[in-house]
């Protein structure tokens, strides 16, 4: 019984952390249809910005916020210089964001070097719930992730701003005929998505050692989270997709090597993608 609970707790933590990591992509892919292959690079960049600022003495939370802003600015530049010309061409944006990943990774290597970096854990230790021990920091991140996703979903679905944004995006032609400023909206969404990716990268950094490819691990998993959950389903989709990918990985990892577990989960995700391209909940 204890092991089951601890497995469930583990799975929940991993689900929420993965949801945080994938959320930026869910926003960008789900709302403006860009297959952001640079999502991993944005996570990585967020991690490095956090490392740089904390090393310079900035308190952790402020460092993470600065990192998010930094990545949001990078995203803004990317959108403005390149992406905004290619919104209707998913293949091109796929390749262009991939090129962004290649270039950004090299820039990171040049600026920061390839050694592993460490961001110190601001909340070390674990919280005791009798038989279950939850790492304090991971628990905090998990809660934060839930709050962030919930709050963002609230903004997008319940506030005027969010409804306007979604209406704009769902009906670009009508919106442009009405004179509404689409390009600003797309920019805004792209920046938010990038910023959140940077935020996630910063928050996750204390849990891993930071290297130029740290975000890559989350790239394909984030895509599968979004596709399995349903592209455009920001709240439920991200959580369900994360639960599937993260949870399944945790469970399989009990029976085989971690690396192999991931392959099995990818295989399952591919099968789901084939049978339920609109997300695991919807019949296509």
């Amino acid at each position: 019984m204890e092991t089951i609970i601890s497995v469930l707790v583990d799975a929940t933590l991993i689900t929420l952390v993965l949801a945080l990591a994938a959320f930026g992509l869910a926003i960008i892919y789900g709302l403006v249809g860009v297959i952001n292959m640079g999502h991993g690079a944005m996570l990585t960049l967020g991690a490095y910005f956090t490392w740089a600022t904390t090393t310079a003495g900035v308190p952790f939370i402020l460092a993470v916020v600065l990192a998010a802003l930094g990545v949001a600015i990078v995203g803004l530049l990317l959108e403005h210089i390149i992406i905004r010309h290619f919104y209707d061409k998913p293949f091109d944006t796929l390749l262009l964001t991939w090129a962004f990943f290649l270039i950004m990774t090299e820039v990171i290597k040049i600026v920061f070097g390839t050694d592993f970096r460490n961001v110190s854990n601001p909340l070390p230790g674990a919280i005791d719930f009798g038989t279950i021990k939850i790492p304090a920091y991971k628990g905090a991140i998990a809660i934060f992730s839930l709050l962030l996703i919930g709050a963002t979903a609230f903004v997008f679905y319940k506030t005027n701003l969010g409804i306007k944004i979604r209406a704009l995006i769902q009906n670009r032609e009508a919106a442009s005929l009405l004179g509404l400023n689409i390009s600003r909206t797309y920019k805004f969404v792209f920046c938010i998505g990038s910023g959140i990716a940077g935020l996630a990268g910063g928050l996750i950094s204390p849990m891993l050692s930071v290297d130029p490819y740290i975000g890559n691990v989350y790239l394909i998993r984030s895509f599968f989270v979004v596709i399995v959950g349903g592209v455009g389903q920001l709240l439920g989709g991200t959580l369900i997709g994360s639960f599937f990918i993260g949870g399944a990985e945790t469970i399989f990892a009990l029976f085989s090597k971690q690396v192999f577990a991931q392959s099995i989960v990818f295989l399952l995700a591919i099968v789901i993608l084939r049978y339920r391209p609109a997300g695991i909940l919807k019949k296509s």
Partner: protein
Amino acid sequence: MTEHSEKQWIESAAAKPRNIFSEEIVAVIIFIIIALLPIFITGYPIYILPQYMLFGVLAMSLALLWGFVGILSFGQAAFFAVGAYTMGLAMQTNFGVNSGYIGILISPLVGGALAAITGYFLFNAGVKATYFVLVTLALSIMIEQIAVSQSDITGGWNGMYIDRMSLTFGSLGEISLYNDIPVYYAILPVVIAMYAFVRWFATSRFGKILIGIRENEDRMTALGFNISAYKTGAFALSGAIACLAGALYGAHANFVAPSLGGVLFSTEVVVWVAIAGRSSLLAALLGGIIVASLSNYLSTVTPNYWQLVLGIIFILVIVFLKGGVAGAISDLSKHLQSKIK
């Protein structure tokens, strides 16, 4: 001639206007040059060139898929690695027949089967082209992970050593491939044969249908073509070619590691083909050879800056020069030809 000017020579030969010199003639010239190289150069370039030629074949396999059918795959290197591992495993067997021949025979079958199964599963359901890219990327990761985790078979992170095969001709004797020259002249004909084979396919009825699918899938379906079968066929062919190239690479490099099948290499192949020109098999073949050798040379000198430059060229090509270098040359020659008329 130094190595550097040899490459310039190859590049300028490829740059001849393609209407005056058809692709066949350019190909013949280039292959003759490559065949004659060992007369003028010795040492490391001759040792390593067969590997670059095989990278070229790998690039060509992607061009078949991407240029002709319009299907982008981020997973070609996965087939390449599977081929190398297949050769490695074949060389460990002892069935009394030349183990290398077994590897060469089996690898395209393995690659073709893997691609056919995946392709059938996905194309038959009408999976979107963009999802297909993600799936092939995931496949790349999976192959790399399987290679790492099944270390009993594959040697895990440390990789697998592969004996070098020799050419046996039954009772007629044996040719050792241990030295640079014999193996060079063993691999070159196979590369030429693979190019010729794929080119023949691409210019045949099959190739035209693939182009039709790329141009207007719905119209092709409405004309009675089973497009999912054709896509699967194209994917299987490209997988088989990539796998065979990988097997030969394994036989030549005598070593394979999981990173050969991984994401970084897989996507590098996409960059090569995008820059060289995806619609031309010859351009992709050359592009693979040239960019791979440049990468190897420059990455010892300035690794990060070279990748950075490559990334920037990649962006420029996607934004401005969709057809890559080959496309630009072809447009230029058409422009010049119309000026002459």
